[in-house]
């Protein structure tokens, strides 16, 4: 594809990538999946499963030893030069005492659109204002980022991704340390972005919320175990394969163990996080628990 892609025209293809670190650790082996424009995809797996390595490969931060990542049919570096990839970091990765304000952070999303001196023009200010408005942070634009609550902090970086106008959004654990109201607001925003034809890739532990907003799921454990539509891929059997013993499993009510990965005849609650997932005996997702067991 040459020239500017039409809005919503950018696809993502991860083609058989293997990533090894200098210490000899093979983080990913032969991982493949692809996403079409207008998709919210959950990237699900335990810590150390290679989720973050997959993110790094898509951002061009690590170079796969084998395979390739194509964004809109182009290599990653070309896509980055065109500002196609936006990224929302995990809260723990940000230095909240850094001397920057909310507006400064959102303006960072525009750097790739500016000249080498990075002096914002009218269009940049406009994009920043619109992004702040869209996440409901306009009234807090002059705050230093450390003065914000957990949910507000998350929204600043979402606004930065919006201001950048990328076609592919990578969100690393966006629901950690966020209250339910903010989580729902973020999910509404992601759904609106999906309608605009963007691809949103969300790495998450939060199994319970995956079926509520992801139309695709990629299960990762040192490779891509399974990828595809949520209702086909996000099953109890697959989740047990992805998580192994790391998942807490509660059966309601107590019953003798039957054949198969899940306990037969009963509703099963799978949880890796504060928001447990409730599944029917056949592995169908029923919903999520809003209260602790």
């Amino acid at each position, binding site marked *: 594809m040459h020239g500017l892609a039409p809005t919503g025209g950018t696809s993502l293809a991860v083609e058989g990538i293997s990533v090894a670190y*200098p210490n000899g650790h093979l983080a990913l082996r032969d991982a493949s999946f692809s996403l079409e424009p207008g998709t919210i995809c959950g990237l699900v797996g335990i810590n150390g499963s290679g989720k973050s390595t997959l993110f790094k490969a898509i*951002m061009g931060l690590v170079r796969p030893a084998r395979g390739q990542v194509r964004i809109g049919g182009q290599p990653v570096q070309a896509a980055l030069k065109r500002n196609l990839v936006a*990224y929302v970091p995990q809260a723990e990765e940000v230095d909240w005492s850094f001397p920057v304000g909310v507006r400064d952070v959102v303006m*960072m999303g525009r750097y790739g659109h500016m000249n080498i001196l990075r002096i914002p023009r009218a269009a940049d200010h406009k994009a920043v204002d619109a992004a702040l408005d869209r996440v409901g942070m306009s009234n807090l634009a002059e705050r230093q980022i450390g003065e914000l609550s957990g949910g507000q902090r998350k929204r600043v970086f979402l606004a930065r991704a919006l201001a950048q106008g990328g076609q592919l959004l990578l969100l690393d654990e966006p629901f950690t340390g966020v209250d339910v109201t903010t989580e729902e607001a973020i999910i509404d925003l992601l759904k609106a972005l999906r309608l605009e034809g963007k691809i949103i890739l969300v790495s998450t532990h939060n199994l319970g919320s995956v079926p509520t907003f992801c139309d695709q799921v990629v299960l990762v454990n040192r490779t891509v175990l399974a990828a595809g539509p949520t209702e086909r891929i996000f099953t109890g059997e697959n989740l047990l394969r992805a998580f192994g013993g790391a998942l807490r499993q509660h059966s309601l009510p107590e019953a003798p163990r039957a054949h198969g990965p899940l306990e037969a005849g009963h509703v099963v609650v799978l949880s890796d996080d504060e928001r447990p997932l409730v599944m029917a005996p056949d592995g169908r997702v029923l919903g999520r628990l809003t209260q602790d067991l």
Partner: protein
Amino acid sequence: MSELLIPFEYDYMLRAMGISALVGAVAGLLSCYVVLKGWSLMGDALSHAIVPGVVLAWLGGIPFAVGAFASGLLAALAMAGLRGRTPIREDAVIGVVFTGFFGLGLFLLSLFPSNVRLQTIIFGNVLGIADADIIQMAIIAGVVALVLAIRGRDLMLSLFDPVQLVAAGGSPGRMRVLLLMLLAATAVAGLQAVGAVLVIGMLVTPGATAYLLADRFGRMAAIATVIGTTTGLAGAYASYFLDGSTGGSIVALQAAIFVVVLVFAPKHGIRATRRATAAAVAEGAA
């Protein structure tokens, strides 16, 4: 009163105050990046590692800045090369490399005990500085300031969020090298003003002070630059009366300002944080 104006009547004093203020300004501006990157130790290492290069440059008859810069970069390369290739922690690698370079520099210096110009590089002697050296320092300071004017925003982004710099099509690795080179260059410029031992003070203290006073990078940079400029000028001025080391008075002045700010800064000072804690507890009890 007229006695206080005496330093301004001497050409050498005017030059000393001017160049100290210029180097102070540039080092102050750069110190913001050093502090936010957490590279104080790295700056200390680089400023010591340039000493052997100065001696070798003098022996080879080339400008001292060239030798010093090459020596600093060689040390930085050695540190970068060793990191990750040995199980030794980074601080130990830095410690070994910079004391090794500094020790070699001191040894080389001791071979030429009568060379006054070489002796001053350890403690600086801005009052007796040669015109050629002033020109070298001014050029270096100008280049560093120009580079920061052009690439400063990317450099700041690489400190705050390197992945976002990648998303904007930039390279954090290149910014790391750039900061290293700016650090080495500024250390070279500060060499004759305050000496190799104290130049790290100018490369850390103004930034650390400004960090306590500002919640925005632009303001932090402005405050650090003003502190660097005024202390450079005032330190050189004061050394005329105190008949003492210029470098010592500049860095001691900066440290004094830091202590005052540390205690009294309106938001991040010790008193203010204590008051905020007490207020929060009182509010919780009410």
